[in-house]
């Protein structure tokens, strides 16, 4: 790997899942920073530097976002509606990948139709999947 990604953002309400994903990325050493948030609302706050992230610190803009679909309150789809309205400089370079345990084929279809979404992967996240995504969207980092 020539170059590390600046930041990967995981949006998932399940804490153990976040823990495992963070561990995986850290072990692969493919990003300088891994950010974990447990709701769509918190993710928006991170991206816009508001709420709990309005603390004067610079937060690295994510290169890659992994988004869970099924979350309490604001789910993945609702997050996307808000995300689409963000100014481009807050949206990052990003490749949005839906990461889900959803067995509903409708979700995959909806994901294909959404321009913000570049991929649809099932949990649990495997190293090969991350590798595949990076080589496809960030060839200079391979």
């Amino acid at each position, binding site marked *: 790997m020539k170059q590390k990604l600046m930041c990967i953002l995981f949006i998932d*309400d399940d*804490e*153990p899942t976040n*823990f495992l994903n963070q561990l995986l990325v850290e072990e692969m050493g493919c990003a300088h920073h891994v950010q974990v948030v*447990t*709701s769509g609302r918190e993710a928006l706050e991170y991206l816009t530097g508001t709420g709990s992230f309005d603390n004067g610190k610079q937060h690295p803009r994510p290169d890659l976002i992994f988004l869970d679909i099924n979350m*309490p*309150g604001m789910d993945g789809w*609702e997050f996307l509606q808000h995300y689409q309205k963000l100014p481009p400089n807050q949206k990052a370079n990003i490749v949005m990948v839906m990461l889900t345990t959803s067995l509903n084929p409708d979700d995959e279809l909806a994901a294909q139709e959404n321009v913000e979404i570049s991929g649809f992967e099932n949990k649990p996240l495997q190293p090969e999947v991350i590798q595949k995504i990076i080589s496809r969207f960030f060839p200079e980092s391979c």
Partner: protein
Amino acid sequence: MKDQNEILLENEKAFKSLFEHATISILVTDENGDINLVNPNAEKLFGYTRDELAGKPIELLIPEPLRDIHRHHRQHYFNAPKARPMGLGKDLFARDKNGRTFPVEISLGYYKLGTKNMAVAFITDVSERKKAETILRASEETTRLIMNSALDAIICIDTEGCITVWNPQAEKIFGWTEAEIKGSRLSDTIIPEQYRALHEAGLKRYLTTREHNVINKLIEITALNRQGKEFPIELTIIPMRQKDTDFFCAFIRDITEKREAEVRQKEYAEDLKQKNIELEQFAYVASHDLQEPLRTVSGFVELLKRHYKDQSDENVTKYINYITDASDRMRRLVQDLLDYSRLGRERILEPIDCNHVVQQVLNDLTMAVQESGAVVHIDRLPVIAGYATEMKQLFQNLISNSIKFRKPGQPAVISISAMPAEEYWKFKITDNGIGIEDKYWERIFIIFQRLHTKNEYEGTGIGLAHCKKIAELHNGKIWVDSTPGEGSTFYFTIRKRNTDPWRA
């Protein structure tokens, strides 16, 4: 022996009397069409006295537009006079003193008076008859229209079982035209083989004894069309009598499509029933079988915990806790799923006093009520027909939700009331809690859908799904109205039964 004069006198008397008393109007004209004689009936018919008419041209009694034609016909007649009925196939009209035009029938005779030809007209006013004919024609037209436009095939048969009436719909349904089938026997045409003997016997029996079992009611049977295809029909046979003649009228409807639809519907209902059973069974079995491996996981995690409880590596403790939490949660989810699928499984409708139910629920929730300082106002509630366990759960879920989702630092104030409507009871549970954004008003009733993370509020997200299923088990609905930050009102309806008393 009477002499010649005497005979003549008697004849004259007789003819005069005939002329004077005839109930037909008689006019006599000469060759020029001038009126010579007028009988009393003609005076009455035309409104003129015989003096007024004497010597006047006959055209006086003809409507203006027809006078020239009449004059022409009259001259033509005297060229070769003979006795004949007049205006055969033509409508003739006369005109009275008041100018009224009316239809007449006329027959003509003639006799010679010296060298002159005299014409005798016998005139009948046919206004009444024409009127009656018009009415009859109109009524026949109406009948024809009804027969032609009826959606039922209308078929009449005589006492021999031969077809006398066959309307266009019958042509359409059975394939024979009226001309082809009129006079044929019903049992040689549309009656299927297996019913022919019955039909013949039934007809004979009715005509001799007036006993019947198929007449004057709607029956479903089959019939044959021209191609010999048997198809289902709805049939009503009405016996009729006209001028001492019996006949039978049948109204027939092709119910092939209706039958097919019925069959489809039945299959669909059966299918749905089967699917529902399968689904219930599926959820039950799935959640039941999921318990088994889960117990294994929990069991071994407990074992690990005990073995490594002195382990200094905090990661191990962390991992074990993750597994414990996850398997606990899984157990709760599976249990909830099991409960959900069992809901209303063995239900018996019974009278339920909702006042008691709510009281019971509040007793069960005493701790939560006291700890949160909740205040609950309860209006008078009805006695309904419902399922006891489920109703209790419904109230319990809604009340405990109101307590659970209260505003931080503010005691919950909950009001419970019910309103009767025409077909159902409408219950209302209002709180002053955190409220729900309108975009989530439907999602909250879906199983395992939650609005808050586990850290904010405990729970699997089954409660309102239960409530929805319970309301639906009672043929009701459940919905919410809410203002975020101010509170929520949950409504649900329960179908009323006639037996529900309104407890005062």
